């Protein structure tokens, strides 16, 4: 039997959902693999939703909004795009970014809706079933995505993505506009660090581990682990639990 992917689409009410309806009214046919959650605006999509969806084992997530400049809520789709790019940056760390896609479909583009949905379904079909679907899931991937979900839930990442347009396109509190390259450099670093920190927290929530143990488990340099653990300790999120010989063991608070 060929693999039929399970896809979840988040559609904005005013453009893409209307475009999907128009595909129906025009009897344009496309494969029946996608289920739809209607939201008023693509800007409503909390990045957490996308990770939660992937964690359930759904094979692909499609976010559809109004074309840039056409948002019913003026700029909600621009906010959606910034959040989506962030989600992709996280997923790229584990080479999972091709399982999510963002596109624009207007209320008059029934044929385009059918086309982009068909193409996405084909792309997921080619990639095969999600390693998080079925009985025996890839636990390491699950933990990585869970850490990412926690990252996009964290205030640091949310503050950065929430302020991005204002500080790169208008100006920050001090009347300066931050060049997009400079912003991206800071953002990329924050994404990487937050992911490592959330991954450490996840490991320490079930086990007591040393820096070395964590470095082995996360396949990262011990110095990087230590640096992030010091940050977590200063935030009051982890602490020493005991000392094994000369090696301190950590736990989550």
């Amino acid at each position, binding site marked *: 039997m060929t693999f039929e992917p399970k896809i979840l689409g988040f559609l904005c009410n005013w453009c893409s959902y209307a475009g999907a309806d128009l595909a*129906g009214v025009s009897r344009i046919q496309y494969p029946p693999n996608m289920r739809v959650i209607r939201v008023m605006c693509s800007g409503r999509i909390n990045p957490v939703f996308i990770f939660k969806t992937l964690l359930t084992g759904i094979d692909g997530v499609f976010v559809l909004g109004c074309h840039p400049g056409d948002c019913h809520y003026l700029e909600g789709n621009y906010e959606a795009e910034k959040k989506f790019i962030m989600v992709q940056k996280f997923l790229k760390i584990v080479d999972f970014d091709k399982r999510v896609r963002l596109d624009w479909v207007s209320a008059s583009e029934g044929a385009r809706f059918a086309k982009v949905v068909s193409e996405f379904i084909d792309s997921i079909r080619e990639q095969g079933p999600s390693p998080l679907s079925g009985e025996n899931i890839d636990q390491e991937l699950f933990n990585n995505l869970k850490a990412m979900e926690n990252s996009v839930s964290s205030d640091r990442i949310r503050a950065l993505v929430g302020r991005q347009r204002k500080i790169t396109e208008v100006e920050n509190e001090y009347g300066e506009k931050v060049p997009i390259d400079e912003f991206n450099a800071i953002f990329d670093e924050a994404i990487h660090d937050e992911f490592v920190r959330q991954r450490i927290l996840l490991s320490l929530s079930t086990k007591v581990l040393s820096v070395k143990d964590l470095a082995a488990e996360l396949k990262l340099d011990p110095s990087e682990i230590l640096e992030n653990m010091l940050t977590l300790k200063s935030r009051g999120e982890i602490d020493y639990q005991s000392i094994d010989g000369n090696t301190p063991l950590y736990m989550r608070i």
Partner: protein
Amino acid sequence: MSDKEEEPRIGVFVCSCGSNIGGLIDVKALAEFSKTLPNVVFTEDNLYTCSETGLAQIKNGIKDHNLNRVIVASCTPRTHEPLFRDCVKKEGVNEYLFNFVNIRDQNTWCHQKYPEEAFDKAKDLIRMGVAKAAKLEALENIIVDATPTALVIGGGVSGMTAAHSLANQGFETHLIERETELGGRLKTLYKLFPNDQEAQILLENLKKNVQSNENLKIHTSAQVKNIEGFVGNFEVKVEENGNIIDLTIGVILVAVGTSLFTPTGYFGYDGKTRITQYELESKLKNNDVKARDIVMIQCVGSRNNERLYCSSVCCMTALKNALILKENNPETNVSILFRDLYTPGTHYEDYYRRAREAGVVFVEYSPEKMPSVEENLIKVHNEYLGEDLLIPYDLCVLSTPLVSNNDNKALAQMIKVPLEENGFFLEAHVKLRPMDFATDGVFVCGSAKWPVDITESISQGYAAAARASTIISHDTIEVEGATSFLPDYNRNLCTGCEVCIKVCPYKAINKNEEDDIEITQVLCKGCGVCGATCINHAIIIRHFTDQQILSEIYAYGGKEV
């Protein structure tokens, strides 16, 4: 009325929609399946749920089974949600406890060769709908006062018509014109198709109407400087002759019309022997046409890569002016070079016939082989003859499009409405809401949307006035209850970072005097961007809460993660 504490008792009504749904998938089996879902206490299938019978079945279901949540699985919420919301409301169930599942427009109509898969998809969609319904909360719509005043921006034919209509209905109406006199494009015209009426006579009549109405205040040399507020309660700053006036306005009508296009670089336009149709119009008005060989070229600067649209009035304007030229002097040679000739309806087609009878010569050209205007001759390729025609001219008239105003964007931002790709104002829906904007309380008429002729401008003026009066004829306005919301129990989560204030497109979020975040419910349109952005998940998007959306995700994914 249900409250949060009450156990959900969900009723699922599966519509067959004649054979639109039932023809592909088994709606009886879907209704049976729905019975197995959590919190579902009653299910039924209907031939047409939206019919009187179907609605009565919903009402009986609510009564007999004490339902506090209702799901209809059928066409699309975009057309039928209001009907079903109204139905459950009449039976005492809060309208926000109704949930729609789309199994027609986005299912049976699109998967006609896959009945089994479409059935499975419908099952999933109902499962997701039931999961969300269980989490739905009752909401109340918000009632605000409406000021019974109207602001019409633009004193052209459409704006004057709309303003006069509103003032006649007894509403205090303010008509804003940026020039020193009313009239807009009409001021520059000579005679009007389809009845060759003198433009200036129509203008004088319209002016007399608006100037003599005591409900109507005309502001000339005036411009809108700022607009704040929302439907029923706009605060508008108008600069009139250098003075600022503050107005409290209930509804706003956009009737700003168009600008003229100067065809620099097209066919050697020089404003002397190569002029635009509007310049010819002025010459006709002043009886100043001495040329004997006149060639008109249509679609100059429109229907090309730069401007894809048809300006819609130029064919008729050319025919009208050609006929006037012929009537003034039958010896004048008039040729019209066209790509397609657009004369819809009985009156306009009659112009074409009359122009032919009067001896106007029509030559088709194709955009691949554009005519070329030379010293004394115009060369145009005729496809039927397979050769170039050489037409002598002493006046070449270019039919140029009406284009959008440069300052449309500034106005659009003030009233929070979109423009389309050519800079014209974009209505809420081309067929269903042609005079409305998506933003409540703002309407559009005339050429602000796209170029229209005088007849259409007048019709649209009346239409927009009628739409606007549906709002200001009531003392109050009901606003959707599905808005964003910062509940007291989440206030401790709010760090005061103000990201929500920055992302809100409607300026609905502010900090109050106590430095606390405050969301003005009537300004909120419920887009949900603030909630998706809030760094500590403090803001709740009612009717699309995180819990409600996650429940849909989990229902499809098959597990909670």
